[in-house]
């Protein structure tokens, strides 16, 4: 069956098997393999995308349900060849090892910071509790979120945040 949807700001269409997930369509039909297929049962968050602005697991959305809707994937976060500040932060802080969880975590972080630009450590952990990482133990991922939050505070108009506060990634582990 044919579906029409907007992906990363572009109108796309695909001929899908009715039982396939949005994740499969993105990866195998639309040339967007950035969202990952670590479990396909909503237990790992590696397929996280924004569906009409909401953080969801693409593996749990039927491709047909995305017909007429807007999807943003990790590939669509940056603008004009520049990385999103969350992507920059993950690259800087050592939050990426094998990187398989990284796209999902970046999308989840973007969703978090949209809603809470300056989250507490507990809010960060709960917001990312649906994204599994097997390599990093999460510590540097939290550093990346703090770094991205601080970078966002710097660039938002009228922000009075001290540029260095909260953004320094403690190399040997933070206490929180």
């Amino acid at each position, binding site marked *: 069956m044919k579906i029409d949807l907007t992906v990363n700001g572009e109108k796309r269409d695909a001929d899908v098997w009715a039982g396939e997930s949005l994740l499969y369509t993105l990866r195998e039909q639309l040339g967007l393999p950035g969202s990952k297929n670590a479990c396909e049962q909503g237990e790992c968050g590696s397929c996280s995308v924004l569906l009409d602005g909401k953080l969801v697991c693409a593996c749990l959305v039927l491709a047909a349900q995305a017909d007429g809707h807007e999807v943003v994937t990790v590939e669509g976060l940056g603008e004009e060849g520049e990385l999103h500040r969350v992507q920059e932060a993950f690259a800087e802080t050592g939050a*990426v090892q*094998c*990187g*398989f969880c990284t796209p999902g975590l970046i999308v989840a972080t973007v969703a978090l910071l949209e809603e809470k630009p300056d989250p507490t450590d507990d809010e960060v952990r709960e917001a990312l509790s649906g994204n599994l990482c*097997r390599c990093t*133990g999460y510590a540097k991922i939290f550093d990346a979120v703090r770094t991205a939050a601080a970078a966002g505070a710097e660039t938002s108009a009228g922000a009075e945040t001290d540029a260095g506060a909260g953004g320094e990634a403690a190399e040997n582990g933070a206490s929180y």
Partner: protein
Amino acid sequence: MSTPTPETAQAPARKLEIGRVGESARRVDAIPKVAGEFAYASDLFAAEMLWGHTVRSPHAHALIRAIDTSKALGMPGVHAVLTHEDVPGAKRYGLEFQDQPVLAFERVRYYGEPVAIVAAEHPEQARRAAEAVHVEYEELDPITDPATAPDREAIHPEAWTQGHGYRDDPRPNVVRSIVIRHGDPDAQGDVSVEGTYELGIQDQAFLGPESGLAVPDGEGGVDIYVATQWLHVDRDQVAPCLGLTPNRVRIHLAGVGGAFGGREDLSMQIHGAMLALHTNRPVKFVYNREESFVGHIHRHPARIWMEHRGNRDGKLVAVHAKILLDGGAYASSSTAVTSNAASFACGPYAVPNAHIEAECMYTNNPPCGAMRGFGSVQSCFAHEAQMDKLADALGIGRIDFRERNALGPGDVLPTGQIVTGSFPVADVIKRCAEIPIPEPEELPRDPIRLPGGAGNTTRGEGVRRGVGFAVGFKNICYSEGFDDFCAARVRLFADADGELVAEVYSAAAEVGQGVVNVMAQVARTELDIENVVVAPHSTDAVASAGSSSASRQTWMTAGAVQLACQEVRSELARRGGKLELGDEIDAERVYRHARTFPLDPDTGQVVGGDKAHVAFACSAMRVVAEVDVELGLTRVVWIGTAQDVGRAINPQAVYGQIEGGTAQGLGLALMEEIQTKDGLITNASFTDYLIPTALDMPPVVSELVEDPEPDAPYGAKGVGEPPTVVSTAAIVAALRAGTGRDLTRVPVRPDEIVGL
């Protein structure tokens, strides 16, 4: 027909900043990974690609009476259905012993064993066709208890692992048995403590599912793009099964989504190649999560009895141990795991007398092999529980007791090897003990800061705090006489602007640990140039780098790249220090560490030379945990650790390895277990095989103890395994302190904490 290159999205060109040795340089692959543009094995695509799917045994043990593929062959979109009859060359393969069928014939020996493979246009068609392959099984009684395996009929009558210089043990189903006799095992101490410990099956649970793309080259050969840990050993197993010479099979490293030992054995390599050659089309395999659990080896479950004897002066006198490992249906790397478990059973302590027996059995349980820690994890859990018991019985502080007995240079290991080089156990213990512990948190707290988390199960009722301490160690690099080497190739040329550029060719598998940065940082340091590029990793560009395992790859690859760069530098000097556009210097060198020697089959003592193991690394860990003793739920609050790393080539990456390795040990301590019933896996999904989430991991404060290893490049040792070796033991020690319970089994279940 030319070999189509798999399509991958092009990463926009960005200037790479590669640091030097010792700097926390950003990963060279960070940008593609954060942009979602890094090509993992499951992301590959080729024109005219078919999808592969594996038909697997639903039984743990059964005879195969017949396989009927006729219905499957007739189904829509199906291009091939292959069985053991279609295997062109050798019918079996294996890492150390060729005991494992490419596709099962005569019998299946474990739940999920591959029996047939299908290629179709769409994965859904492949799945439906796989369903239509009819296999007639005659079920057999599975062997599920390794203790009874020697009394049962041999699963492998060929006894593949007998001989090979191992201890002679002709009982059926013995993969390997080993005895280490050191000093006078009958020596008595003032005090003796005993315990029996058990560990369940842990899974590597890497996030990237098994996947790969096999592309026929049109001339009877094949290119395989796959997520793996050892390209050349893959090739050397694949080629004979395809009936091809090694040069006709090229293995290319595709992006790896984590490994932790689970990709040392083959997954889809031969299957994909067979289907690709048969259909003359590229064939892609991607396992789903359920299949992934079934489709790779796991950590050996173990039952360990130990007795520790000590004197009131605080010194260890003797250690006795009996270790039983369940190897499952095929040998994989079990013989080496068994040896490790035995060799490191006493822990990083000077033990003058020991008698250690370790055996690994074939059963019809899920096959086991390499997982981060490789036998040392199991032994550490037992010996650290014992050390606490003995310290308490002697009336000596637990940390003090460990410091007093810490191994140091000049001490003799139970294998007879004398400790040389870097091994600062006492220093590591001290540094860890000095890290200040956080004060208890006040109440009230948000539920996620209490045991039970968002489940809202306590507001502080029943919560007790416990602190635990443990030390562990293992070998770095391969052992017992294995010819462990690593090749690297460096090509230096001038670009259009006259700038020198170095290309590094290495077959070292980047699995997330950051070896891709190590090679770049070493090259930059050795050649003192800005522009270093790491070339794609494949078997046709350079010789073997050995496996990304045994915490060896940083050491070995740094050594190899260093040698190649030294040759390049010498040649450049010979040419007056400059290259013109079009000139190049291309040098490939092989690095070897010091030679090791085998263990005597009957005494476990190193023979023929002085070392069975190249080097050692240790880690100490202190854990603060809170336990809801009425519900048996745990929250690990804080972890402090000191690790012996030799030299940190990239400190940020080293901290990352420590934090990640600790998380895996936390999983084994609290929540991870492959559950089986009569050999069948009952929890093959992330719903019921639980790995730690962001709400389960505490902050980890790490101290790097840099005592350079004299024989290693830059003094660097491996760092990946020691945190995993020690963390399970340290966490359970904290739980024992908080609950007063013995907790002799991991993963610790709430029932045991509660006392049901």
